[in-house]
């Protein structure tokens, strides 16, 4: 990082994209208040949850008759106990395991990547996949595995690296998952009445708005792609209310300054070149058809599942369950709020997490705990 004392036009410009206008926020709220509604919205992004809780918008909207909560929008949280155990096993087998910081403290059955690091195993936190490749390049005698977690926002970064011939001692364990079919799964399960969906702004930056169209058509659920400033989320809620009143659900774009209908075509192309869709289990969900990304055959030399098939075979037939008492599964399906779990803030805290939703900065438990009045 390079520090510069001067800071000016760039900062002012960057702020232009952050959209802050308190007066406008007040106008949106007063409009929603005027309408008598009793609605339940779901969003699928930890950053939306952060905006809601940090600014007290969840409480404000509840007062307006709108309950708004997080679904499975936290890549670390929906990573399954099996995937965690696979990484722990590879670390124990002497591989250099690299992943995002958010993954480190997610508890496995007995250990976490963080506790294994303390025990002296080679586990390293990286900012992005390119850092993991650099580790592999500098340590040709080590087998470096990158735990590739993330939705469509992150998948193209993995794909772009795969296309650049990374060193042969580098591989990935793909935990990438994709949003649209997960939304379909939630609606098909029908456990929860969902009056509207706020779609994730940065997933949509990549995929555009088209992949959501079938949801409004087939399930008659209004959807709005929203940005992450308080105004964006409020405007998103307001747009959903308007759609409901009109009775014409569709996928609407609030985040036009970033998201376009066709998304980022280049990023989509690299994803498709490197990955193919696979049926995938999400934590708290059964297997969701075509909701994961697996490396295509021509990249199998980088697929940790293939390369380390023998080592991973050790746990192939084992079943892994959720941590005892942990309700992350129900939370990720939008059925409960963090406070509904008896472990929340007591036995389960960011320092001593029981489940992933308390670990990740995108997990609702972590966010709730962070802004809790203590």
């Amino acid at each position: 990082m390079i520090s510069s004392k001067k800071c000016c036009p760039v900062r002012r410009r960057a702020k232009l994209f952050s959209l802050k206008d308190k007066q406008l926020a007040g106008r949106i709220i007063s409009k929603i208040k005027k309408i008598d509604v009793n609605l339940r919205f779901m969003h699928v992004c930890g950053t939306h949850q952060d905006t809601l809780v940090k600014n007290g918008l969840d409480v404000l909207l509840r007062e307006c008759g709108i309950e708004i909560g997080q679904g499975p929008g936290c890549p670390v949280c929906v990573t399954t106990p099996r995937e965690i155990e696979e990484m722990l096993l590879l670390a124990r087998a002497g591989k250099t395991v690299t992943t995002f910081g958010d993954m480190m403290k997610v508890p496995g059955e007995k250990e976490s990547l963080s506790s294994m690091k303390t025990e002296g195993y080679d586990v390293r936190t990286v900012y992005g996949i390119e850092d993991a490749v650099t580790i592999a390049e500098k340590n040709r005698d080590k087998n470096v595995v990158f735990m590739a977690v993330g939705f469509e926002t992150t998948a193209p970064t993995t794909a772009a690296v795969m296309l650049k011939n990374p060193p042969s001692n580098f591989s990935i364990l793909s935990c990438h998952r994709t949003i649209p079919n997960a939304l379909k799964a939630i609606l098909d399960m029908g456990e929860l009445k969902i009056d509207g969906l706020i779609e994730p702004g940065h997933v949509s930056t990549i995929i555009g708005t088209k992949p959501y169209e079938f949801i409004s058509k087939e399930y008659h659920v209004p959807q709005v792609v929203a940005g992450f400033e308080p105004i964006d989320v409020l405007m998103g809620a307001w747009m959903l209310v308007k759609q409901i009143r009109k009775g014409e659900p569709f996928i609407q774009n609030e985040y036009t300054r970033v998201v376009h209908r066709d998304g980022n075509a280049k990023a989509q192309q690299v994803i498709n070149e490197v990955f193919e869709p696979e049926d995938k289990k999400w934590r708290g969900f059964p297997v969701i058809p075509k909701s994961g990304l697996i490396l295509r055959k021509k990249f199998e030399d980088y697929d940790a599942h293939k390369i380390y098939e023998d080592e991973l075979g050790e746990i192939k037939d084992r079943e892994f369950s959720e941590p005892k008492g942990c309700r992350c599964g129900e939370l990720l399906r939008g059925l409960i709020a963090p406070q509904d779990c008896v472990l929340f803030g007591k036995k389960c805290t960011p320092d001593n997490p029981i489940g992933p939703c308390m670990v990740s900065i995108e997990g609702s438990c972590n966010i709730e705990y962070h802004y809790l009045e203590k």
Partner: protein
Amino acid sequence: MCLAIPGKIIDIDKNREHAIVDYGDGTKRKANITLVDVKIGDYVLVHAGFAIEILNEKEAQETLDLFKEMLSSEEEG
């Protein structure tokens, strides 16, 4: 993890794979630009070390005006 931060491209390397992005808070950092077609001076959204989209300044300026207009037309209607 889907967090993405806006910044300005201030330099691009010779092979056009990486650029230096100025985040305006004193932080300048290298980012991969192979997922976008950018030039120096463009504003981009950066996620996990990759620029994932170019930000349109005009659209950003218009967003607030558009919201205000939407709310006003609702009042009239």
